[in-house]
């Protein structure tokens, strides 16, 4: 048993590492394949109004040198790899002279604080409702299903804008933009904390509401499928207690949902974009978008590398957990 699990574990770990290496290489190469020249954008900011060709060229050369964009791609890759291993992601091009590390650090806290509770809440509520619908059926199901389908088909920005218009602009219950009051300076007092809380509501619920529907639908179909499975009928014939059967059913129905949760957590940074833009919420999604717009290779590579690693870790953890939750998977994979 344990030997089988070890084999399963190392197999997964091996694949994890292989994927990581390829992801690392792609993270480096893909942004750099975009047409255009990011250094030209920096020079643009400096050279406006400059009428001297040699002066512009000198500045251009200085920055291509600094960002290494004049070197062959392979050489750039090895420099990048060496720096990343040292934990140095270098200067951001679009926010020069800010470093990539600084740009990510100052925004990622907001994103995690917004997304993590929102994803977990949406997932829990959604699955609970889905399971309830499958089990209780009748009126509950008939009401929940259409609502879920309706809500889950809302594009995220649509939901965000609707919430903003209703609760922010019309009712004025909540502020419409920013991470805290426009007139505040961060410090540890009630006013500031309260401001953070009120600014948190609209982006938070815009994420939660959109995710509930999809989760509920998924959970409902899985649960209905399992409830009608032969093993359930067989268990009933055997006279096994309902509670025990429900235990089996939901454990099986949960599997795909757990994968979904892991993916949602892994792609947190990218998923944050819509809520962050609509509500001017400080966060990594918007930082990344700006990086892409400004062809900020170091920033894009660092952010995508971070997302990749998060997804891989989430995936890896799930696969390892699967081994425990569902022995069939382990058995198949270990053979």
């Amino acid at each position, binding site marked *: 048993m344990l030997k089988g699990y070890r084999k399963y574990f190392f197999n997964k770990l091996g694949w994890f590492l292989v994927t990581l290496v390829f992801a690392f290489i792609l993270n480096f190469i893909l942004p750099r394949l975009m047409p255009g020249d990011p250094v030209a954008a*920096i020079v643009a900011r400096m050279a406006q109004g400059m009428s001297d060709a040699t002066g512009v060229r000198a500045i251009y050369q200085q920055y291509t040198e600094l960002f290494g964009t004049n070197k062959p791609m392979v050489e750039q890759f090895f420099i990048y790899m060496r720096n990343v291993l040292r934990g140095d992601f270098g200067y951001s091009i679009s926010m020069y002279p800010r470093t990539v590390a600084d740009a990510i650090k100052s925004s990622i806290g907001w994103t995690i604080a917004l997304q993590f509770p929102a994803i977990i809440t949406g997932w829990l509520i959604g699955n609970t409702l889905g399971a309830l619908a499958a089990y209780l059926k009748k009126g509950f199901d008939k009401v929940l299903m259409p609502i879920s389908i309706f809500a889950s088909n809302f594009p995220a920005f649509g939901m965000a804008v609707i919430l903003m218009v209703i609760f922010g602009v019309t009712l004025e219950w909540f502020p419409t933009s920013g991470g805290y009051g426009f007139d505040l300076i961060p410090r540890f007092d009630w006013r500031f904390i309260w401001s953070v809380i009120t600014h948190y509501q609209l982006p938070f619920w815009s994420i939660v509401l959109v995710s509930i529907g999809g989760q509920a639908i998924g959970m409902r179909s899985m649960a209905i499928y399992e409830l009608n499975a032969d093993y359930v009928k067989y268990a009933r014939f055997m006279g096994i207690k309902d509670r025990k059967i429900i235990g089996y059913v939901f454990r099986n129905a949960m599997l795909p949902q757990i994968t979904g949760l892991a993916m949602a957590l892994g792609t947190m940074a990218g998923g944050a974009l819509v809520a962050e833009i609509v509500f001017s919420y400080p966060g990594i999604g918007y930082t990344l978008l700006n990086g892409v717009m400004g062809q900020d290779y170091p920033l894009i590579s660092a952010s995508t590398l971070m997302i990749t690693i998060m997804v891989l870790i989430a995936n890896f953890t799930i696969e390892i957990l699967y081994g425990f939750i569902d022995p069939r998977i382990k058995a198949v994979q270990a053979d």
Partner: protein
Amino acid sequence: MLRKKLMAMLGAIVVLSMMMTACATPTPERIVETVVVKETVETVKEVEVEVVKTVEKVVEKTVEVMVTPEAEEGALPRNETLYFNGQQWGAVVGWNPYSSSNNNAMMGTGGDSHRATMFETPYLYNMLDGQQYPLLADGPWSWNADMTEITFKFKAAAKWSDGTPVTAEDFAYTWDTHLKYNTGVGAGNKEYIDDIVAVDDKTVVIKAKLDENGKTINPLLVSAFVSSNIVIQKAWTQKLEERTGGDETKLKADPAEDVVYSGPYHKFFADDTKVVFIRDDNYWGQDKSMWGKLPVPKYLAHVIFKDNAAGSVALAKGEVDVSQQFNSNIQLLWESYGLPISTYLPEPPYGIGASLPTAFYNLKSYGLDQIAVRKAIAIAVDYPTIIANAMTNQSATFDQVPRSLMNPTPGEQAMYNHDAVKDLQWAGNDIEGAKALLDAAGIKDTDGDGWREYNGKKLSYIATCPNGWSDWQAAIEVVAAAGKKIGIDITTNYPEWSVYQTVVTKSDAPLPEGYDIFMMWSAGAGPTMPWGRIRNMMSSEWVGMASNWSGNWGQYVNPRADELIKAIPGETDAAKLKEMYTELVKIYLTDIPSFTLMYRPQSFHAVNETVWTNFPHQDDGSKPPVPPLDCTDGWGIACLYNITLVNP
């Protein structure tokens, strides 16, 4: 039975899951815990060494805030804070006035209408009357008899934030530093300025570069230098040089939190969501030789909005006092919603146009080397639709201000002979005229497919501008529609800005496919205008530059225009100047290397008078007139000394 239990259990899970979001629900103890933890993490995250300084500074300054009676803890008192939008679009990256990549817009690092909040220029330019008013300087500057040297003095009262006087040596050393470290200012002016010398403590001489005949190469640019370039303290510069070991890149990348400044405001707070400046109550400008008082708002605060829409919402809600962004259909804010919001002019175009967003022709594209084709497209375009849709009427029309190379300000309009070019100007929508013009040139639809051919080849073009620049995209669509009406196939394409700017500014090779008609900007108002703008739009000196951020992106060459552009800066006779400008307008409207699509203000300037009032408006009686430049730019900063509270 079980079903009921399960219901209860699931109900409990729902409740539990809601509690997991406890930081979103106001239960006191929990919140304190959660937020405190998060904040500690964030403090650690700040830039390693600088963090100590920032924190110290904030703490030290907040003490000051608490002294003020109305100041509530942690909050900026609304009655002492002027809020902005549209100037700062990302977290500020530093406070270094030598760094040309510094995005700290509210700080101001020079330019035609310099933003003198933190750093000051010797003179301030006023776009309304075209004058340069002394700021750090004492009285007007003057040329010597040969027009090769400019002399001016610094005010005796002018002081740095550390209390030391602003000297001529500071100005000279600033210039030397720009040259030594090859900054934008240095590289951009060294062809025109030979040297800047401190004659005595207060007197400065700017020596112009001379041509082979001993005449100043460009007197206009030299005289503009005094109002567009800031003075930086010598002692601090030396400290910076020492710290960075004379390394050019390091010197420009230094965040310079310790910078010494002469202006009325300086850093109070900055993070990813806002930047706040606080007034220096020891500011030298309260001396009678300058303003005679301190600027009214104690704080200038700029929240960083993600887009125009977010900024517009904040303006409507009264969270922004001064708005420098494009607010679509701004008149609705007062007409439909009755908000106390206003613009410089009460009626369209609401502001004073200063720059000319323009469509350039790629003169090497097939058929676009023909003046008839260029003119036909240009006169067929429906400009009123562009102005109504893309600009929501925040631009003068071409009936109100006929096209030339001048912006709509009275000063520039007076610089050419309107009657002499009347026959060449057009206001658009002239479909029949365009068709007749093409027919006369023999450019007709010969194969019956509905599109015209030139020498047997169909005329088909791509019109382009950057993706997401919605007002420009709307304008380009109207240009394409005009082509279809006159039998020229124009389609649109919108590459990302990062690609677009690289292609368009590469003037050392012909433009690639897909860039037949493309949009770019022109210079706004400034002491070298309209000459500077005309040079940007028509001079062939830009053709051949690998990175051309000046103009003439369609690569137009006309020796007579070059000659005139070269001669104007040295010309002092007003009548002659008018003649020369008129000739340039004539050439431009005849050859049509590019055509202006709309007028755009120097800054969008809308104010919400919920808290503050007495902002500059047309005919407000201010002398000299305060320009609508957001209370910060050029002479517009005078607004900060004039505004008053609605409820004092």
